[in-house]
């Protein structure tokens, strides 16, 4: 097995802040997040040969981290996250005044999203990945990422009671949610 190059090691070090941010976003827990990053680094080191130089290392690492996260969840038996009942009970966030949305409230709202929506909105809205890259990281179709982002945004707006900021008018999905489809 060829030695791991110095450049690869430097790049891994450079990616750690992003990996930690993504890990916290997924786990919602700083200790678990750092364990996850550690696992990711060890895995990345072991399989460094499968990384193709010149491709996006950050996306490659995010994929490893995400796979590790879901395989740990499966092993542990899924922690309760996305039951609608529980979420509704926790919706007690006071209304935000426009432009004065508290970061703490936002964090609380983000926590209430199901993982698939949370990771999608983080990858697209914060980590700077394209829809195509996010789809690759999550192993799903681009359209799936788009609809998850859209649902995540709608849900966050509901939880945080933000409205009227969509200059395009309600999109198809929020229209379905809020629409008064009288039958």
């Amino acid at each position, binding site marked *: 097995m060829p030695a791991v190059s110095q450049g690869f090691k430097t790049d891994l070090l450079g990616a750690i802040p992003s990996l930690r941010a993504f890990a916290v976003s997924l786990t919602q827990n700083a200790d678990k997040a*750092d364990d996850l990053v550690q696992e990711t680094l*060890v895995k990345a080191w072991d399989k460094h040969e499968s990384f193709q130089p010149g491709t996006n290392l950050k996306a490659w690492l995010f994929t490893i981290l995400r796979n590790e996260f879901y395989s740990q969840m499966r092993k542990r038996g899924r922690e309760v996250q996305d039951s609608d009942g529980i979420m509704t009970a926790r919706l007690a966030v006071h209304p935000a005044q426009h432009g004065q949305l508290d970061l703490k409230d*936002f964090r609380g709202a983000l926590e209430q999203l199901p993982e698939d929506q949370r990771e999608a909105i983080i990858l697209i809205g914060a980590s700077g990945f394209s*829809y195509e890259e996010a789809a690759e990281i999550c192993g799903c179709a681009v359209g799936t990422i*788009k609809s998850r982002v859209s649902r995540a945004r709608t849900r966050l707006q509901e939880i945080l009671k933000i409205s009227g*900021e969509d200059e395009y008018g309600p*999109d198809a999905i929020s229209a379905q949610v809020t629409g008064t489809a009288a039958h």
Partner: protein
Amino acid sequence: MKDMTKDILAGAEGRRRNGVGDPLGANSEIGRKLKQYYDELVSDDVPDRFAQLLSQLEQAEPAQKKD
């Protein structure tokens, strides 16, 4: 005719997608908060354990030269 209808539909689909495509733009409160949340996490100090881990991995590599 069929093709034209398809084009029109595709165009509408494209526009709709563009509307949905940038739901987290700079003008969106959610988009701004999302970046603020994430940037705060990224700028968090990295504990030494990670640099140590990589050094350990490096030292644990099997010696390549066996001559």
